[in-house]
C-alpha cells in the first residue's frame, strides 16, 4: 500500500500549479467573476495547448487518454486557484458522457473540438428547483414526427452562454421514468439562457428554458431512456472531481492563513502564538490532511476502475464540509481584513459554498452512504 504520487503525477501537479499561478492569478479570477464570458478564452487556448482539455479523451480523438488520477490532479490545482472556467462542464460532464455513450458520429463531431479548445460543452441535468435525481429532471421530451420537442427549465447550467452544446437530460413524455440525454445546440430555436448572479460570479451559471426545442434522434446520446444510468455512472467522477477541487482550495486557504498568522503581530506577538489560534489552525489542518487522503483515494479507486460510488460519496461529504469549515476558521482567525474584497480569502469561501451545494451537499451524499450500509 502506498499513498505516494508517481513522478509523472508530481510533475503534472507542479506544472499545473505553476501555470495557474502565472496565468490565472487572483486578479484575473476577480475579473472573470464579473466577465460576461465567465472564463478566459486566452487561458482556455493555453490549456488546450497543454493537453489539459483532452487529458481524459481517447487518443483516437486527439486526446491523451490519461487515467482519472491525472484529471483529478488538474481539478485539485484548479481548486487551488479558485479558477472559474468551463473545464468541469466540458471535460468532465461533456467529455465522459460523450466518450462513454455517444455514437461515433457525435464523438467525432465534438471530442476533437473539445481537445483543441474549440468547443465548450455543458450539461443540464437537474430541475427548475435545483434538485438532483432521477425524479428531478426539469426537461420533458415529446416525440413529434420522428423528432423530439424539448420543453422545461433547469436552474443551474454552468457556462451555458459560451457553450456550443448543452447535454440535456429529459424525461420522455411517453415513459414516466425514462430519462434520455440529448445533445442540444446552444443556438437552437426556443432555448434561452439567463445569467444568474451567484455568490461565485455573475456570468458563470445560467438558468435555461426550453420551449419546444426541436432535436433530431441522432442527437440522442447513447440509448433512449438510459440517460440516467449514464449520469449515475459518472456521478462518482463528478463528485470526486469536486472533492479534489475542494482539497486544492482548502490547502491554499491553509497556506495563506498560516502565513498571515505567523506574520501578523497583535498583543506584541504573532497571532500564531495564541494557543486558541493554534488549536483552531490545527482543526483546519486536520481537515485538510484528512481530506487530501480521502479525495485521492476516491480518485485512485476510479482510476483503477473499481466500484467507487461509496468512496466518492464519502469523499464529497467529507471534503466539501471540510473546505467550508476551513474557510470559516480562516475568517475567524484572520479577522476583518479577511472580510474585504481585496483579500483573496473570500474567493475560496464562495467557491467552497458553491462546491458544497452543486451536485448535492453532505446530507445528500450521506444518503448514498446510508444506502450502502444497508440502512
Amino acid at each position, binding site marked *: 500500500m502506498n499513498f505516494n504520487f508517481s513522478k509523472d503525477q508530481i510533475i503534472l501537479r507542479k506544472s499545473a500549479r505553476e501555470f495557474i499561478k502565472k496565468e490565472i492569478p487572483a486578479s484575473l479570477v476577480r475579473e472573470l467573476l464579473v466577465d460576461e464570458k465567465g472564463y478566459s478564452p486566452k487561458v482556455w487556448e493555453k490549456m488546450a495547448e497543454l493537453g489539459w482539455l483532452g487529458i481524459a479523451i481517447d487518443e483516437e480523438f486527439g486526446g491523451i487518454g490519461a487515467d482519472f488520477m491525472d484529471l483529478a490532479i488538474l481539478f485539485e490545482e484548479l481548486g487551488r486557484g479558485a479558477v472559474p472556467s468551463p473545464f468541469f462542464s466540458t471535460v468532465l460532464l461533456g467529455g465522459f458522457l460523450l466518450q462513454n455513450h455517444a455514437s461515433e458520429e457525435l464523438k467525432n463531431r465534438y471530442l476533437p473540438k473539445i481537445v483543441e479548445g474549440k468547443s465548450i460543452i455543458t450539461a443540464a441535468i*437537474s430541475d427548475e*428547483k*435545483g*434538485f438532483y435525481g432521477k*425524479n*428531478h429532471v426539469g426537461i420533458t421530451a415529446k416525440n413529434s414526427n420522428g423528432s423530439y420537442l424539448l420543453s422545461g427549465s433547469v*436552474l*443551474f447550467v454552468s457556462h451555458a452562454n459560451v457553450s456550443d452544446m448543452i447535454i440535456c437530460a429529459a424525461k420522455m413524455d411517453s415513459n414516466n421514468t425514462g430519462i434520455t440525454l440529448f445533445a442540444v445546440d446552444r443556438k437552437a430555436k426556443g432555448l434561452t439562457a*439567463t*445569467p*444568474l*448572479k*451567484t*455568490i*461565485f460570479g455573475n456570468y458563470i*451559471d445560467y*438558468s435555461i428554458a426550453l420551449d419546444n426545442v426541436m432535436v433530431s434522434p441522432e442527437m440522442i446520446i447513447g440509448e433512449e431512456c438510459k440517460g440516467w444510468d449514464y449520469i449515475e455512472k459518472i456521478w462518482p467522477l463528478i463528485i470526486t472531481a469536486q472533492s479534489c477541487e475542494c482539497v486544492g482550495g482548502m490547502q491554499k486557504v491553509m497556506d495563506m492563513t498560516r502565513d498571515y498568522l505567523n506574520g501578523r*503581530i*497583535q*498583543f506584541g506577538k504573532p497571532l500564531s502564538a*495564541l494557543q*486558541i*489560534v493554534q488549536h483552531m489552525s490545527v482543526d483546519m489542518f486536520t481537515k485538510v490532511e484528512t481530506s487530501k487522503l480521502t479525495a485521492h483515494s476516491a480518485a485512485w479507486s476510479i482510476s483503477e476502475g473499481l466500484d467507487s460510488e461509496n468512496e466518492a460519496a464519502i469523499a464529497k461529504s467529507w471534503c466539501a464540509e471540510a473546505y*467550508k469549515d476551513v474557510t*470559516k476558521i480562516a*475568517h*475567524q482567525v484572520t*479577522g*476583518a481584513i*479577511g*472580510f*474585504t*474584497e*481585496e483579500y483573496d*480569502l*473570500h474567493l475560496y*469561501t*464562495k467557491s467552497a*459554498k*458553491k462546491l*458544497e*451545494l*452543486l451536485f448535492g*451537499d*453532505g*446530507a445528500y451524499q450521506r444518503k448514498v452512504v446510508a444506502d450502502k450500509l444497508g440502512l
Partner: protein
Amino acid sequence: MDLRLTEAQSKLQKEIRDFLESIKKTGEYPFTNDSLQLVFSPEFSQRLAEKGWIGIAWPKEFGGQGAGYLERCIILEELLKSGAPVGYHYLADRQVGPGIIHFGSDFLKDEFLQKMLNAQVSFCLLFSEPNAGSDLAACETTAVEEGDYFIINGQKTWTSHGHSADYGWGLMRTSFDSGTPRHNAFSEILINMKTPGIIIRPVINMVGLHSFNEVFFDNVKIHKKYLIGEKGNGFRQIMTNLVYERATIDRLIQNYSTKEALFEYVKNTEKNGVPLSKDPLIRDGLARLEVEFQVGRKYIYYVTTLLDDGKIPDYEAAIGKNFCTLFEAKLSDLATNIMGLHGLIMPESPEVLFKGIVAESYLMSPSYTLQGGSVEILKNIISKRGLKLASK
C-alpha cells in the same frame, strides 16, 4: 420572577409594530428586506424621533424618555425585524448618547444630545487600526496637544459608515511618555468628519458592498472641548461603551428575515410531492435553530434587565453577543444548504428567492463573529470577569 411585559410595554410593542406596518406601506422610506445593512435615512429617523423612540432609555434630564433598556429592546427588535432604515440614529442611540451622558462635558451634552434625539446628527466609530484589531491598546493614531487644540495624525480602519456620518467617535493616543501604562495613554475625542485633513477611502467587503472605510488623518485640528471625559481615560471609557454595544438584541434579530425565509421555503417547497418541512432531518435542523434562537432571545432580554437594574453586564453582554452571532452563522449556513442551489443566488439575480437574502447573509456571516469583539476576545473577557479563572 415575572417574564411578562407590563401593560405599558405591550402597548409600546403594539404601537411600534403598527407604526412600522403603516409607514412601511407608504414606500417613502428605504426599508430593506433584511437589516444587515444599517441604511441611513435621516427622514425615517426623524419620524422615530417625533415619537420619542430615539433615546427612550436616556434619563429625562437629558431629554430622553427615562424609560428602560427593556423598552429600547422592544423597539429595536421590531425595527430590525421590519428591516427599517435605522442607520442614521443607530449609534447615537445605542452608545454615543449614553457615552456622552456618562462621561461628556456640559458643552458636549448641550452640543449633541438634543440633536441626537432629533435625529439631526449621525456618528461613526474610529477605533480599529491596521495594526490594532483585537488589540486596541496598540492604536497608533496620535492626538498631540497644541494650545486649545489636538492635532491628529494617523489612520483608522473598518469604519462603518465613515463616509456618511457627521461625527466620528475616536480613540486616540494622547500620552507619549514611555512611562505611561498603555491603558492610560488614550483619550476619546469627537471628530467632525468634514474637518480638513480627513481623507476617507472606501473598503469594499466580500459581499461587494461599501460599508467600511479607511480614514486617514493628516494634521487634523480638533478643539479640546471635543475631548470626551478625562484625558487618559479613553481606554476604560471605551470598555464600558462596548458593553452597551454588545448588550443589544441586534446580533440576534438582524437575520430574522433569513430565518423567516428558510421556514417559508421548507413549508412551500415540495420534493417528490412532500413538503421539505416533513423531512425529519430538516425538521431537526430547523428546530435546533429555533431552540437556539429562543434561548438567545431570552438571554438578551435578561442582559437588558441587568442594564435596567443599573448593572454593567460586562461578561453577560459578551456571552449574549457570542451566543447570538454563532447562532447567526449557523442559520445562514443551514439556510443555504437546505435551499440548495437557490441558496447560491444573490440579490437582483433572475430566479432569486426571498430577494437573495439567504446567500447574502451567508457572505456576511464571517463578520458576525468578529465585529464588536471577536468570539475569542470575548471569551477572554468571560473567562476573566465571568468565570474568574486564574490567568497566572
